[in-house]
């Protein structure tokens, strides 16, 4: 490999590493912010102390995860320029405004109200504090909106012209650019994924504490809420994922060929390859276990519908099949396990045993990280499936990088790996420690007097959301 190829490979590894690490945090905080909003809303509506207890329990975890999301996110906003300067120059006129809107509508909103949410309980009234929580939750969703729009445009670019210096410039209404063909599907699929990720983590924490003490009311409430979410949203997510896949088939058929492992075209019905070892050298899937015609049925709703394969695509325009093939199966497999967990919880609920079946709790515990893994697997599928392009079909990854020297990128990659594993590893340890403590019901129910003088019910300082900030 010549040095520029090494530098390119290192830059790709660095981007993949930093963006994967980064996305774990918003995948959790998008759902967690909404969960906190629901908890505080329920507390205000019902006056039940258990909701405020859970709010205070989860906001401590939220603060740590959010901080890690912020600092790893700033890295992303600069890495476009440091490592992918040609991409930035060429797509800046289209991608740039979308990201600028993310900063203006979402980042400031989240950051501006986060301080009040974390530290302002005693400083502002209940209504204003709830407003701050809602603003943070809304901010996380707006952020998802804009960054997924920008990302989706890279998959399904529309509404552009190419000017005389080779830049993609807007050439249609911004509405058309923002709502590019894959965006609605990707937005729905990703936001539901974030909600599921959070509910699986919350459910695992609830399950852990139920296994120790099935009568803990805080653990019961969080487990029940999480299992409702898993039971109701997993089927919706499977449907949304299927729709997203059909959209991909329409706009990025090559990605679907890689997901399916279809090296060969099938003029009269393509098989669904369940498992096998994709072999890019010989253009075939070794040891394939497949069901005839099922792929055509799923993708075209017709057993005999023809499906083109990678043999119709030039070698240099294909993504690496094995990565896409496997990451897709990991995501789908975990999705069906989530469905099983949701159904199991419905059965337990129907039999009034939701808090009494240790097997269910063990299952939920094991499934705790499954959302995070599925989310990463999904992103690997869609991003590696877009290769060898950054802007699908138009701008090659190899033509997107900065004029980089390999030693510089190698050094930065090494430092990123060491720092991220150290800092975020320690952060994860702190989160686990917080999760290990059972939720203690310290909040008395709110008296049913809405006109009662303003102020939050006094709580022992040790369980206030800003716990520890004063302790030495």
């Amino acid at each position, binding site marked *: 490999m010549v040095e520029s190829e090494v530098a390119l490979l290192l830059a790709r590894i660095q981007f993949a590493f930093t963006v994967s690490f980064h996305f774990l945090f918003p995948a959790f905080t998008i759902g967690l912010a909404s969960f906190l909003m629901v908890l505080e809303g329920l507390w205000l509506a019902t006056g039940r102390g258990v909701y405020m207890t859970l709010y205070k329990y989860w906001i401590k975890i939220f603060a740590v995860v959010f901080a890690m999301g912020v600092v790893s996110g700033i890295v992303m906003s600069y890495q476009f320029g440091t490592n992918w300067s040609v991409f930035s120059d060429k797509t800046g006129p289209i991608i740039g405004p979308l990201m600028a809107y993310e900063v203006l509508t979402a980042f400031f909103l989240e950051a501006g109200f986060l301080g009040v949410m974390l530290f*302002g309980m005693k400083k502002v009234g209940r209504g204003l504090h709830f407003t701050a929580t809602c603003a943070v939750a809304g901010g996380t969703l707006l952020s998802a909106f804009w960054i997924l729009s920008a990302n989706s445009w890279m998959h399904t670019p529309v509404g552009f012209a190419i000017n005389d210096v080779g830049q993609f410039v807007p050439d249609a209404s911004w509405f058309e650019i923002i709502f590019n063909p894959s965006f609605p599907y990707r937005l729905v699929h990703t936001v539901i994924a974030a909600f599921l990720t959070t509910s699986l983590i919350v459910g695992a924490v609830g399950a852990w504490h139920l296994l120790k003490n099935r009568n803990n009311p805080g653990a019961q409430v969080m487990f029940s809420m999480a299992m409702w979410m898993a039971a109701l949203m997993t089927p919706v997510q499977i449907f949304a994922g299927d729709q997203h896949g059909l959209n991909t088939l329409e706009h990025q058929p090559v990605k679907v060929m890689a997901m399916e492992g279809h090296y060969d075209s099938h003029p009269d019905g393509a098989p669904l390859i369940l498992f096998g070892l994709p072999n890019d050298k010989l253009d075939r899937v070794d040891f394939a276990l497949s069901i005839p015609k099922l792929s055509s049925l799923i993708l075209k709703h017709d057993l005999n519908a023809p499906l083109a394969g990678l043999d119709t695509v030039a070698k240099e325009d294909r993504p690496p099949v094995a990565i896409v093939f496997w990451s897709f199966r990991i995501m789908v497999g975990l999705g069906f396990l989530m469905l099983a967990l949701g159904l199991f919880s419905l059965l337990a609920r129907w039999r009034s045993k939701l808090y009494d079946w240790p097997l269910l709790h063990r299952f939920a515990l094991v499934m705790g990280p499954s959302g995070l893994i599925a989310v990463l697997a999904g992103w690997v599928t869609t991003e590696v499936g877009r290769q060898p392009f950054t802007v699908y079909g138009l701008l090659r990854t190899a033509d997107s990088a900065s004029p980089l020297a390999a030693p510089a990128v190698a050094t930065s990659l090494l430092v990123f790996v060491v720092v991220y594993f150290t800092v975020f590893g320690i952060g994860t340890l702190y989160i686990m420690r917080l999760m290990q403590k059972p939720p203690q019901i310290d909040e008395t129910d709110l008296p049913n007097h809405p006109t009662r003088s303003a102020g939050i019910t006094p709580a022992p300082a040790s369980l206030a959301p800003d716990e520890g900030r004063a302790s030495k």
Partner: protein
Amino acid sequence: MSGIPFDLTVVWAGIIVFAIIGYVVLDGFDLGIGILFPTLKPGTERDTSMNTIAPLWDGNETWLVLGGGGLMAAFPLAYAIILPALYAPLIAMLLALVFRGVAFEFRWKDAGHRAAWDIAFFSGSAVATFAQGITLGALLQGITVSGRAYAGGWWDWLTPFTLLTGVSLLIGYALLGATWLIMKTEGDIQEKAYGQARWLGIALVATIGAVSLATPFLEANYYERWFAWPGILAAGVVPVLVALTTWQFFHSLALKRERAPFFLTLALFALSILGLAISIWPDVIPGRVTIWEAAAPPASQSFMLVGAVILVPVILIYTGWAYWVFRGKTGESGYH
């Protein structure tokens, strides 16, 4: 210079300068507290100082993202040339901000390792500041460009001048931190901060002088810009304003004013940035690329302008509200 059109691109150059001022004004003082951290005693002093900025730092740092994101959106070519040119200092800054940002949360979660997270907070703040100062200096001294890309080496950013600007920014942010503590604390911490502000003020004036003297001689056109009409207007007015502000600053310290030193330091920063903007104008990469050459097409700039015109005032209002919620002196017990 009279033939310069007033257009969207000029407006966007103004917005980027505004974002940079917003960033320096807001994140400067909380980075400064990190820089001063070793001078604060473990326990009450450090906890109180941290509590003065804990609810605000995240919003402050968002201006850095706006500066970067705004530059990519409005001046993609500048973003694409400047960032690779400053690869090492920018990566160092980003990693330093990681350490510093998580320290806000981590130091409370792990009393056994609080001393280690305090070191992370200090070194993260100091390295991030130094890297920003180097970035500024490297931009001023000039960047090698070929076609639409950076064409210099990986160590071009490291010169005596950039080290000077790096040190200057360390002193400047530390001064912002000290004057912020004067405003937000009482007793021993405040007394200590008064002493620090005096020495840092003297040091800052010295470095502003040194940078100002060095800048016009970096590139011929800085010299011409400052000392030819109409640059001479700015060249005459800005130093006078700096001198007046400096005098007011030391006067307010002597009178033990609590707020004035902070806001006068901010004024010094704003004047310095304006001075730099005048030096560079109308280039975005000095001597190489003008703002018009780097500009995104009008369709991009106008789309964003709608958002900026509506949203920036809204952001300022709710950011102001957050500052209002946490107004007044911060006790050691934080926000209970």
